[in-house]
């Protein structure tokens, strides 16, 4: 299991309905990209961080390990805004408002990422996917996504073991050997995924498979109180942004 999904399975909010957490987490993400970055995205960032480390109980180390990935992309992307092409300063010169634009972009993307992480760290995929049928997504499509999800972990595990075996056979000592090993790894992943699908098909056929994959979904109800509190928090953040925007600009 991947670290974020593993953390979601042991989250304090695991038993909450995904809709509750989507309103809060994805609401924060929408606010982060819709409000003025200063002070809107900064407020969203602080709120999301407080919720993640506080009520949601996500360990700081785990959060950092997940957060540094999008943060790296954000920093790399923001760097391009520091320069301008053409103009009086030469072919490439520092952009006059580059640091401001880069800072705003960094605030927006880091706040938006934390909103999604709040949802991802508290909602296991196995709770979310089966409920998509009720949201109108065709059942066969959800079934394919469910099989993909469950098979991905097994396949990732297989690939890791094959990679270790290749390394033990000195398969990564030279560049040529590395390429050969990589090709073998990709082909093995294909063969194993199709072999697993065929064996799963045989097993399911023996249990009367009729085309629908029925899975147990933990019982949970949408909490009106939690959703109302989330909407109030989001509205308060939006209002506070507009109140503080002029004095802080």
């Amino acid at each position, binding site marked *: 299991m*991947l670290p*974020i*999904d593993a953390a979601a399975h042991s989250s304090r909010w695991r038993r909450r309905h995904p809709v509750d957490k989507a309103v809060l987490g994805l609401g924060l*993400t929408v606010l*982060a*990209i819709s409000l003025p970055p200063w002070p809107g995205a900064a407020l969203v960032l602080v709120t999301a961080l407080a919720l993640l480390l506080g009520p949601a109980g996500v360990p700081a180390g785990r959060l950092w390990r*997940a957060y540094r*990935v*999008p943060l790296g*992309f*954000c920093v790399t*992307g923001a760097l*391009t*805004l520091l320069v*301008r*092409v*053409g*103009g009086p300063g030469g072919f490439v010169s520092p*952009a006059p408002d580059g640091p401001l*634009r880069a800072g705003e*972009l960094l605030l*927006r*993307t*880091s*706040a*938006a*990422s934390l909103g*999604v992480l709040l*949802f*991802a760290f508290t909602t296991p*995929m196995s709770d979310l996917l089966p409920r998509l049928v009720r949201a109108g997504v*065709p059942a*066969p*499509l959800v*079934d*394919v*996504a469910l*099989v*993909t*999800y469950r*098979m*991905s972990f097994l*396949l990732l595990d297989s690939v890791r073991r094959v990679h270790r075996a290749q390394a033990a056979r000195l398969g990564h000592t030279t*560049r040529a050997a590395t*390429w050969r090993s*990589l*090709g*073998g*790894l*990709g*082909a093995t*992943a*294909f*063969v194993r995924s*199709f072999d697993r*699908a*065929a064996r799963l*098909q045989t097993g399911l056929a023996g249990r009367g498979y*009729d*085309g629908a994959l029925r899975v147990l979904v933990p019982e949970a109800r949408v909490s009106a109180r939690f959703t109302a509190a989330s909407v109030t928090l989001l509205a308060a953040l939006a209002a506070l942004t507009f109140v503080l925007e002029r004095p802080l600009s």
Partner: protein
Amino acid sequence: MHIAEGFLPPAHAVAWGVASAPFVVHGARSLVRDVREHPESTLLLGASGAFTFVLSALKLPSVTGSCSHPTGTGLGAILFRPPVMAVLGTITLLFQALLLAHGGLTTLGANVFSLAVVGPWAGYGAYRLLRRYDVPLMGAVFCGAFLADLSTYCVTSVQLALAFPDPGSGFLGALGKFGSIFAVTQIPLAVSEGLLTVLVMRLLVQSSKGELTRLGVLVTSAAGGKRAAEAESAGAVAR
């Protein structure tokens, strides 16, 4: 390269979502129809999705000494066709956003358009065109994977340039800026992905002829003697 969460302004995020929607809906409808007619396809398609997810997680050595990840869209499109890849790519991107914090939900539309729509169609188009002109299988596979990778990054450059036009030279300046940054890293990576795809396909021709025939990549001798002979020779070259 996925566009990170929150990177695009809201209007752009919505617009790319709208642009991707017809391709994903078309792919989803054909996938649903296929699954209803052949229920066993669910498992095969799920396996294909998992394969795409794992393929995009492989670490590829790059010329600069660092590592990067293949997009997997070229091989996916050749094996499973672009409409199916639009759906499998969307599922993979959703998983990457939620399980790995790569990409994002607000940028899902833009990432789907570059990685699951344009990449597979460009790669598959090149592959089919070359096969029509009797280019050997591995040559066509290399070009398909190379173009799928490169077109993905070209579209990502356009998406970023539209969102962040250069203050001095506008859209074209920004396109040059993002394009040149990508070109340094992505042209060697596209070549690397092409080579990796050829290596994978060579091994698959040897080990999974049945699956490749079922997927329509190889043609059986009964259906077309010339193509089958060609596939055999490709296998012989691999050996």
